[in-house]
């Protein structure tokens, strides 16, 4: 799943909703008694309730399976083969490695020594591929496998003060 897939899903759902909305708006001049409309709405409600809730329950299982939490990632991606410690501060990143292997499972241990930061990895095309928060006093473990070699950029995605937007670092995947 990429941002492009998400955008397409969003646009399709929005288009369906807009079509329904237009149907309602265009129906306004053709008056029907309220009792009939209410009855039809209640029928529709009964018919939609079960499939909608069932679909959400099924999707919920998938959501957790594909979630980025270490307990799931160890199953979906694999056990970490390389560990990188990441510390953050206003306004910079300290990584104990600047080159990471491609096709290997990497574990980032991310923390902060002052305020909250957001550890976000952007690929060479400028697309966000993974993230976790950097919180003082806690270590967030982000497990990720790089399938593409290249230069990656770390951006801060949790607002941390006036130089937040220049809190950058880079590393190479080779």
């Amino acid at each position: 799943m990429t941002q492009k897939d998400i955008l397409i899903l969003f646009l399709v759902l929005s288009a369906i909703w807009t079509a329904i909305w237009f149907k309602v708006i265009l129906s306004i001049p053709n008056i029907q008694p309220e009792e009939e409309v209410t009855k039809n709405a209640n029928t529709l409600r009964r018919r939609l309730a079960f499939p909608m809730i069932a679909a959400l329950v099924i999707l919920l299982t998938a959501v957790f399976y594909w979630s980025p939490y270490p307990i799931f990632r160890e199953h979906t991606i694999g056990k970490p083969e390389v560990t990188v410690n990441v510390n953050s501060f206003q306004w910079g990143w300290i990584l104990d490695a600047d080159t990471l292997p491609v096709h290997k499972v990497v574990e980032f241990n991310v923390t902060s020594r002052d305020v909250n930061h957001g550890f976000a990895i952007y690929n060479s095309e400028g697309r966000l591929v993974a993230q976790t928060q950097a919180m003082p006093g806690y270590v967030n473990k982000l497990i990720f496998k790089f399938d593409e070699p290249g230069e990656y950029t770390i951006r801060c995605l949790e607002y941390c003060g006036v130089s937040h937007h220049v809190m950058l670092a880079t590393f190479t995947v080779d």
Partner: protein
Amino acid sequence: MSDHSIDGPAYGSENRPILRIALVYMLTGFVIFLIMGILGLIMRLDHAGWWVISPNWFYRIMTLHGAGMVASLLMAALGGIIAILNRTVKLSARWLWSAYVVYSLSVPFLLYAVLIGGFSGGWTALDPLPYHGMTWSKSAGVMMYVTFLAVGVGFLIYCVHVFDAVRRKAGGVRRALAWEVIFSRKSDAQPYEPEVAELAAIATAIIGIVTVIGGVLVLVPLFAEAAGLVKSVNPLYSKNFIMLFGHSIANVTIYIAVALVYGLLPVYTKRGGHTTKFVALAWNFTIILVLTPPPHHLYQDFAQPLGLAIIGQVASWSIAPSVLLLTILGNLSYIYRSGMRWAVPSVMIALGFWGWVFGGIGGTIDSAIPANQLLHNTLWVPAHFHAYYLLGVTTFVWGYLFYLISDLSGVREKASTKIAAWLYGIAGAGFLLVFFFSGADSIPRRYAVHLPEWNLYAAIAVPFVLLTIVSLLWIIADMIRGLRSAWRNTSAVK
């Protein structure tokens, strides 16, 4: 008075002062909203590279814009519900003025924190940043939290009073929450059916009270830290409670705004206005559905107990079937083949339902944990909540304000103003779509400086922002004709 008043004993000598309070709440919110909108335009001009401002000032403006919008729209929505409640519930002018004064104290506190203290820590003021801002003092951070306190206490005064007033009228909380309607059988005696506005008011007041308690639970330790009584506050604890407070106060605003729709739709469609079982269920669910999703703000804090992420995910997705099947379907059935009379408020209501679901789709997608991994803190997030606010809350609330002034003054709207209302929707939709596309392109939110390749998005958004301003000015030009007369008609002596 116009000939389409909402049923009820409106505009008697007793309740006129309350209507004036309602107007003051709504107009205060409206004026602040307009100013904050201009600040929003400045930020998008900066992103387009057309009016570059220093990061220091960008983030100050961003802080003002966020805090000002959230607080002003809540206040305006409260004004609307006060006006509707006033028809059937005895409200106290003293309580409502007290809430207004305390709430309004947030304005000088916020201005002091940002303009004098240089605070630019964002409206969420996420601990530990306010006390470790590097470019502002700890006292400026404290002042930001005092701003929170003023909004919280002002809102609490309103909530406690409204909770008590509605409870008294109904003869108990269960009756006020329409539990007799929900659990009644056909063989039962006629259940007690509260007015929809009363039900909405007590449900949102309960949310408000819990929200403010959440706020107090984080503000007290943060003030203790500032006073040197504790070394620091656990940042995971404070983040959870700041998000509970901030998310709920923003989210409850849309539900209060929807309550105004329940009051307005019968005027234009001659339908609805009854607390049916579905309406009763919707408002009872609302209490849970506003208060349980805030953990979704911490999906990317992997140290957070997994159980809380599960609660956030399940709660966030429970909103979709509940709101769609109960609230949206219910309200669309009031509009569908109803012969609804088109006027500025009814146009705004129609737009509001479109925008609310539009924003809801974006929010539901983002609240899926794997999607959130790719969207969190990108511009997708402001896209979602701006859709809620701009095309949900503001259309409902300004639609109601327009109705109220027209109804109080008897000054009818100009036919052409409906064009302005449609224009507001089109401009808003364009502005929001650009935000969604920007988020899908991984552009971070809360960035003072955008990369050159990102400028185009904001450049496309700016004309849409200008169009929303033009359409609003057009609506104001019509609304203002009845303002003086509406004001006079809310005088206690007449």
